[in-house]
């Protein structure tokens, strides 16, 4: 919750900013750390919620398991992509 609030207000502050400003913001260790923490918490929360919904509405066992695995993989891939992106910006490579 705290991280989400931090991100929303940061994003609002960056609303009119250009590429260099946003990149400079995310390159600071504090912002990068908080961002990675936010990514971890959000992307671990998302598959749990989606899993509950799939379990409620998808009744065919095979499709259900396939959907759950697919969701896990997709969310995990997105999370890794996000973290790599943040590290790339933060470490300046």
């Amino acid at each position, binding site marked *: 919750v705290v991280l989400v609030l931090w991100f*929303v207000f940061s994003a609002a502050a960056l609303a009119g900013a250009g*590429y260099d400003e946003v990149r400079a913001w995310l390159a600071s260790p504090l912002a990068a750390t908080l961002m990675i923490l936010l990514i971890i918490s959000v992307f671990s929360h998302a598959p749990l919620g989606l899993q509950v*919904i799939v379990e409620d509405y998808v009744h065919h066992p095979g499709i259900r398991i396939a959907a759950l695995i697919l969701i896990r993989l997709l969310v995990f891939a997105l999370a890794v992509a996000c973290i790599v992106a943040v590290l790339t910006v933060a470490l300046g490579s």
Partner: protein
Amino acid sequence: MWNSAMARAERPLSPHLQIYRWYFTMALSIAHRITGVGLALGLVLFTWWLLALASGPEAFAIVHGVMTSWVGAVILFFYTLTLFYHMGNGIRHLVWDFGYGFDLQVARAGRGGVGVCGRHDRADLAGRGDRPVGRSTCLRTRLSPERVASEPRTTVSATGRRSA
């Protein structure tokens, strides 16, 4: 001996959703799910934004162009809205998990807190009366307030908090 067709045919069905009167708590509950799905889909946009930021000014310019177009602005606006709704309602779920806040007054105040449908304040409860219900002691069951409220328990409410 039960064969599977018989079992399926004679198993009692729970009443369909259309049978129930549409209480605000039901709307809040389903909205929590819908916003959750929307937020999860929006994570794709979030990832795109971060990747573009990492890969260079050209890619970022594309994302920036989309986000600042009016379609993007509408999406971002509703994303923020649903984010706050989902977060507020999530806190409400957390409080419920600890066994508090199941009586109607608190449910109504919480609805005001998550900022939805305040104008239905009286209409949706007309004819039912404001029967106070007791605090539920069951933990971790996600027992929604409308179910608690529909049970014929008439314990005196622990809190007198009102929304307005």
